[in-house]
């Protein structure tokens, strides 16, 4: 139970490879989850009555079953129906669908949280429905849900360890394999934990920055110097 520099040097290459896979799975799954979540939220807040029941069913099924079961299902059961997937793809699909379902609820709350007056003002200007959504509602809704979505992003990063059950050698499984051959469980799992922490902790700084960057109505100067310079013509003068 004593760390030696040699251990770190020995384990680093495998753990590094595993960490790269973990980050890849997280980023790819997050992108798809955001797309799925946004699409489902738009359907659920729209007037597309035909698409609403399937969207609700999707969210209920994915929130109501364990993620690890969904991973098994996509990897082991779908091939029986002719959809054979490699482990990486299956893992990404499972994580994307699961987090897409959760994120759709986050986006939905954001969309429904935009003041009714915003829609009314946009209607009164004659803006078409699609542009009201893309130019007025979503920019405000997305800003409002950045903290919640960032939470899910970090949760997804940690849940990506679950795909180790279908033999994807991401960070956790890379550690498991090393532990199985060297029995240095303390050193290895401590290193694995430190790597997870080393990635997720700066990620939370990033989300804090993201949140402040997109804060609505912040003085443009503090937000985006270039744009403030463009917006303030010669007629601009500071309000006392």
């Amino acid at each position: 139970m004593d760390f030696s520099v040699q251990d770190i040097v020995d384990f680093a290459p495998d753990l590094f490879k595993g960490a790269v896979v973990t980050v890849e799975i997280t980023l790819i799954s997050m992108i798809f989850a955001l797309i799925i979540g946004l699409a489902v939220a738009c359907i659920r807040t729209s007037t597309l009555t035909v698409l609403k029941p399937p969207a609700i069913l999707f969210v209920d099924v994915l929130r109501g079953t364990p993620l690890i079961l969904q991973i098994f299902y996509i990897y082991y059961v779908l091939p029986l129906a002719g959809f054979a997937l490699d482990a990486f793809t299956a893992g990404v699909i499972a994580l994307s669908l699961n987090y897409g379902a959760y994120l759709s609820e986050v986006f939905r709350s954001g969309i429904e949280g935009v003041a009714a007056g915003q829609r009314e003002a946009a209607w009164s200007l004659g803006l078409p429905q699609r542009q009201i959504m893309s130019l007025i509602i979503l920019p405000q809704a997305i800003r409002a849900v950045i903290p919640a979505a960032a939470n899910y992003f970090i949760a997804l990063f940690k849940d990506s360890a679950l795909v180790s059950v279908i033999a994807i050698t991401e960070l956790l499984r890379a550690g498991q394999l090393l532990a199985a051959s060297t029995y240095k469980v303390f050193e290895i799992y401590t290193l694995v934990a430190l790597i997870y922490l080393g990635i997720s902790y700066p990620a939370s700084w990033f989300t804090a920055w993201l949140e402040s960057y997109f804060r609505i109505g912040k003085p443009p100067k503090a937000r985006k110097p270039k744009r403030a310079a463009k917006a303030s013509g010669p007629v601009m003068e500071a309000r006392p």
Partner: protein
Amino acid sequence: MNASSVDSAALTAATEVEPRKIVEIQNLSKWYGSYHALKAVDLTVRLGERIVICGPSGSGKSTLIRCINRLERFQEGSLIVDGVPVDDNARNIDTVRREVGMVFQAFNLFPHLTVLENCALAPRRVRGLSQATAEAMAMSFLERVRVHDQAGKYPMQLSGGQQQRVAIARALCMKPRLMLFDEPTSALDPEMVREVLDVMVDLATEGMTMICVTHEMGFARRVADRVVFMNEGRILEDADPTAFFESPTHERTKAFLSQVLSY
């Protein structure tokens, strides 16, 4: 040259006699569930007219003007805006909304867009103007409501009075034929009411057709061609300001006026 001036003289003479109807409301009824909000309302507004609608809260004034650009549906009767029936036809609704501007009690500016972007958005997206043209026009309207020096700011950085003037400019940028004002000064601090009313008076002087729901009786006296008094979903009074303030016909109107004017 001569002929055309005669023509235009004849035209103005004709329109002075009978300007065209811009809003025709007939027998309009609206229910919220079982609550009867508007009861067989009739109202006609002609081009260039300034109408002030007043009445106690819950009398249906806001609901009525929100029906004009279909922010509210109604169940019975008919409503025609500049020849276009406001019905379930989405194209008609779009047409009417493009031609009718609205100013809200809570301003409803888009908080994620600058003042200039707020104003230029609809002309670009709905009228199809280029960004430069739309922004130049937005700037000219912002100048008219005297907030052009705030063009690069976000709505939250402005005072209430400034925000409401921006909202007026935003509506004007669509070059509407009719402006609806839904209690535009009710959410303002007292000292900001004046700057907004001044802009509205300017607009009225320039001949804009407007329907204003407001409790500003001084404004009504000064600019209204007709004052409409509503109570419990009905129009009780529809008269010129002098008649309305000096000799209202209904007891309810007298009671309302004594409440509003006594302070």
